[in-house]
Each structure stands twice: as C-alpha cells, then as structure tokens.
C-alpha cells in the first residue's frame, strides 16, 4: 500500500506501509531494503526515524513486524535499547572442505594449498553461518595455443603462451590461488598430443610455479582415458584436482586419482540429478565423497547462466539439509564460457554504444563469476587476470565484515 500524500514525506519513494496496528505510529520500509521508517501519525511536528535492520527483510516475517513496533515505540518514548533479534538461519548439513595442493610437509612441492567449501549456510552468508574459505580463483593455461581466446584474454598472455612454464609462473605473479592446465593439445582434432607429452607439460608447470595445480582434460572419453592417467602419475603426491569424471566415463579417472592421491572433478551437464548420480557412481568404485568437487558445467551470463545458477542453488539447499551426495563444493569454468558471449566478443565498430571491449570483456567475465559465486561456487577458473581481480574484490565486498 502506498503512503498517501497527507501523511508524510515518503510518498513515491517505493516504500510500503507495514500494518502494525499501533494507534500512534505508521511504519514504512523501502522495498526489499535494509531500512524502515516510522512516523508519528498525529501531532504537528512529524518525526521520522530510520530503523536499522541487519539483513534484507520480508514483510511476512513476523519477527520483523514485532521488532519494528518495539523499536519505534521505544524510540518515541525516548528509549533506544532495543536489540535486533537473532534470526539466524541454521541448517543440519555442512559442505565438505576440499584442499588442493600439497606442500613439502605433505609430500608435495607446492608453495601453498587452497581449501574450498566448508560452509554450513548459504553462500557468503557469514552473518549467520561459517564461511571458512573465501571463493578461490584459478587462472587457466593451455598447452593448445590461444588462437581461440578473445583478444582481451589473449593480450595478457601473448608473451608466454608458447611456454607453459613461464605462463604458469605469470599466474602466480597475478595473484591466482591455483593454476588450471587445460590439455587442449591432446584433443584429436587439435594435434592429439600424447599422454607422455602432456605429462611433460604437467611437470613443467609444477617445476616453474608453486601454486596448487588443476588438470583438465578435453571432454573426449578415449583421449581423457589415455592422457589423464599419465598426467595424474606425473603429478603423484601433489594433491591436484583433476577433471572431469562423467556419468559415462569415470572409472579410469577415479582409479588414477585414487592411486596418485588427487581430488576429482565430477561433471554433469546442468543437471542436478546427474550431479548426484555421478557422485554415487564414484562412491561405488571406492572414491571418497569428501574428495569430490562438483562441476555442474558452466554457462556465462547471457549464455544460460540461470540454469547453472538454479542447479547450484538447489544443490546447496539439499546439501545443507543433509544430502551427503550434494555436499561437495562446486567449481565453475568461467573464462572459456564468458568468451563465447556476444557482449564480451563483439568489437566497438559493431556496437559502439556498448563501450570499449577492453573494459567490457573482463567485466563480463567478472560478472559471470560473481553471479555464480553468489549461487555457491567455491572455485572459479578464469582467463583474464583483470577479471579475476575484479571478481575477487566484489566477492570480498559481498561478505559482511564482522
């Protein structure tokens, strides 16, 4: 209900009247906002007070109306000692914590490790739950060349793209939490680089940078089954994250990861039922659920992000309510996908009103990352170091400082 002209100064501001049944006070809140306002109904000098609210509020929540009423009454009677009621949401379940990388203490050679997951509440909701690990960011490197990369993505890496070791070292310089080696060169249409050669690339990356390593195959079952085990072996003991296991192709990778001590990516194309099924298949072959990271595949903003978002949302809710087969943290593969969207790709000559591409492209990648972090992503694989920086800063801003 909109406030009428005669009763106050908030008309037209989009605020809603809240019915409190109090004879002297009218209370309004800004639509879905953090602030509410109370008015004295009568009297010549109308006083207006802002009412602090700790979190977004919805009218149907009864604590809120009670709180507003008590606060307003206390205020107008000269008291301001109302404490904001504790309305924290609690869940019975908790996300698993997955650590990637092994330092010398744990038999590896990494300079650091990263942990993802471990939350016992909704994404970033650190005002009511534990968020032990902020979202982690990995930068993607590939042994297949950067011909398919957007100019804005390629610009940063042109000097190092033909030397996988130097490129990996650069990622460390840019502040990535991990480096993700994509084995594009192994693709049968793209050179069919052998398992031994790819294993050589893995070793080079491990030698030249101290970041935890993610190794990602090419999504061709026969290739992945022959190449990934070699790469897994070459990185034995380094506690890498290797992707990806799928419903029709999981046994070989699961066996390799078990034997060489790696974490595994369980992939399912935008399908929560399959995500659960792949996890149970991995469990059936003896791979521990707590070492799995879910990859629900990735859709960029403007390219199906909503499907991934809702899968992640449902999975998190089920996990928090105790579903052990969905308590795995989620990784998303953003850089590659964001680069497929017209808004990130098109040049200024084509769409002058969209502004310069060098600003737009990283923004698009960062916006995609932030959207998926809000849905619960624990690990974002990105391409553009500028976009990574923007996304990390935005994620920090989204977390309430305690």
């Amino acid at each position, binding site marked *: 209900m909109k406030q009428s002209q005669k009763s106050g100064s908030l008309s037209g501001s989009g605020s809603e009247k809240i019915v409190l049944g109090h004879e002297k006070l009218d209370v309004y809140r800004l639509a879905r906002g953090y602030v509410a306002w109370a008015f004295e109904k009568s009297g010549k000098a109308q006083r207006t007070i802002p009412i602090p609210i700790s979190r977004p509020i919805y009218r149907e929540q009864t604590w809120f109306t009670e709180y507003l009423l008590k606060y307003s009454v206390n205020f107008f009677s000269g008291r301001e000692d109302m404490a904001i009621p504790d309305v924290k949401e609690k869940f019975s379940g908790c996300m698993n914590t997955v650590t990637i990388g092994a330092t010398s203490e744990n038999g590896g050679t990494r300079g650091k490790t990263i942990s993802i997951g471990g939350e016992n509440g909704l994404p970033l909701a650190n005002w009511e739950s534990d968020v032990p690990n902020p979202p982690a960011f990995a930068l993607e490197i590939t042994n297949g060349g950067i011909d398919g990369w957007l100019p804005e993505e390629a610009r940063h890496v042109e000097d190092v793209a033909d030397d996988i070791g130097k490129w990996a070292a650069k990622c460390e310089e840019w502040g990535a939490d991990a480096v993700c080696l994509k084995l594009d060169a192994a693709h049968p249409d793209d050179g069919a680089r052998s398992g031994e050669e790819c294993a050589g690339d893995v070793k080079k990356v491990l030698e030249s940078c101290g970041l935890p390593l993610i190794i990602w195959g090419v999504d061709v079952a026969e290739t992945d089954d022959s190449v990934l085990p070699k790469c897994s072996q070459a990185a034995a003991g380094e506690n890498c994250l290797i992707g990806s296991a799928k419903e029709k192709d999981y046994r070989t990778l699961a066996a390799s990861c078990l034997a060489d001590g790696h974490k595994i990516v369980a992939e399912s194309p935008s399908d*929560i*039922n*399959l995500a*659960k*099924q792949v996890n*149970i*298949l991995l*469990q059936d072959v003896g791979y521990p*659920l707590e070492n799995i990271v879910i990859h629900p595949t990735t859709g960029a903003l403007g390219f199906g992000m909503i499907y991934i978002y809702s899968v992640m949302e*449902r*999975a998190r809710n*089920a996990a928090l309510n105790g*579903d*052990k*087969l*969905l308590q795995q943290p989620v990784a998303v593969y953003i850089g590659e996908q964001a680069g497929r969207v017209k808004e990130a790709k098109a040049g200024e000559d084509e769409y002058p009103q969209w502004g310069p591409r060098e600003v737009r492209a990283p923004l698009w990648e960062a916006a995609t990352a932030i959207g998926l972090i809000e849905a619960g992503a624990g690990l974002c694989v990105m391409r553009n170091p500028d976009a990574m920086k923007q996304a990390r800063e935005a994620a920090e801003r989204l977390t309430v400082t305690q």
Partner: protein
Amino acid sequence: MFVIGERINGMFSDVKKGIENHDKSIVQEVAHRQIKCGADALDINVGTARGKAMDNMLWLIESVQEVTDLPLCIDTTKFDVMGEALKACKQPAIINSSKSTEEELDRYVPLAVENNAQLIALTIDKSGVPSNAENRVAMGATIVTKAMEYGLEIPDLYIDPVILPVNVAPKQPVAVMETLRQLAVLSDPPPKFILGLSNVSQSCKLRSLINSTYLVMAISAGLDGAIMDPTDRQLMEAGITAELLMEKQIYCDDYISAYLGNR
C-alpha cells in the same frame, strides 16, 4: 524418513527366546539386520519374556550397545524401568512413550530433558484413543505446551497420533492423516510426527502391502518417521520413494541406494 526398527521386541518369538536364554547373538543378529536395511534407531521392548522387566531391559540394552552406536528407543510403560534404561544408554535415547495426560507428561517431559533424550508422546488420554482428528489435535496441543513449559526442544519431540488396525477401526487412517496436517501448523518449528506403523495392519492378511501403502499416504500428510520393520524391503523402498516425491530428496537414478548409503 526417521526409521525406528521395531524388531527387538519380546513379542517376537526369536527375541523372546534370546532374552529368556540370555543369548546375545540372537538379539545382536536382529539389530544388525535392521541397521543394514536402513534403521536410524532401534526400538527396545522386553515384551512378554519371562523374568523381571527391569533386568531384561538392561540386558537387552547392553547386548545391543555392544554392536551399534545408533540411538535406542526405550519402549516400556514402566516409569522406573524407563529411568534406569535411559541411564544405561550411551547415546541420547528416545523415550517411547508418554500419554498426553497431564500426570504422565509432568513426569516424562522432565525425564526427557534431564536425560537429554527425545520423547514420543501419544495422543492417548484416560479415555483412550480418540475416534476423530479434533481430539487428537487438542491432545497434540497439550503435548507441545507441556514440552515448552519444561524446556524440551520442540525438534526433540515426536507426536504419535496413534493408528489403529484398519480391520476394526476403518475411519482411523483418515483421521490420523487429518491430525498430521493440522498439527504441523501448531508451532514453528513444528514437532516431528511418528507412527507405530505396523498396528494399522494388525491381524490383516496383506500386512506388508497395507503397511507400505499407509506409510506413503501418511508421509504425504506430513509424517516424519515410523516405528516399523526396516527389513521389509517393499516398505522401506515405498517410504524412500514417497519422500522423493515429496521433494525431501533430490532425484538420481540410484536414489534408493543413495538414501540407504548416505544417511
């Protein structure tokens, strides 16, 4: 679905024999079988076995606790036996049960709070089991009020709206479902709801079919768990599937084993 396995009960001849001969292996075997099939807790009832109820109860608890850490559901009408049994339980136990008369609730609710136990309260008073939903709901309200009065956390409270055999009380299954629907809005968070399920098919011929059909119907009305026979596979699978269809579980092709393997 919270499944309390009903098989460790002296009314069953194997368990009765185990109690009377002090043969732990029989009782432990029954415990094992129920756990394997998906029990979340085990009901312990000495039934009509020879000997003192107190001694038999403590012996049963000791025998079962040797093989499992699952919570035990102490099933006795004797208050002194209940008190001693709760002390003997290593894990927080479940009291089965209190009637909803004030005298009983005034004894059992504090007993639950003292022992950090959960409580099953039946909608039965001095005049017995109500014939309709209204009186059950009224008793449910008494139970919740008493729980709040003595500080029993509402999620630790189970209300059992008491199902009677369908062959002698044909209107009861519907009345119980109506009770479940109405009691769900009684408090926030609501208490949990449980049924001594097998009673619905007492002395009937197609017991398993009646049990599993009614379990599904009751789950759709808001039932959270049942005291039942988890070794009845059709029954377990029907319950798991009903919860899936109530969106309490996310589907995957192997949802039955997903449920059983990851509770």
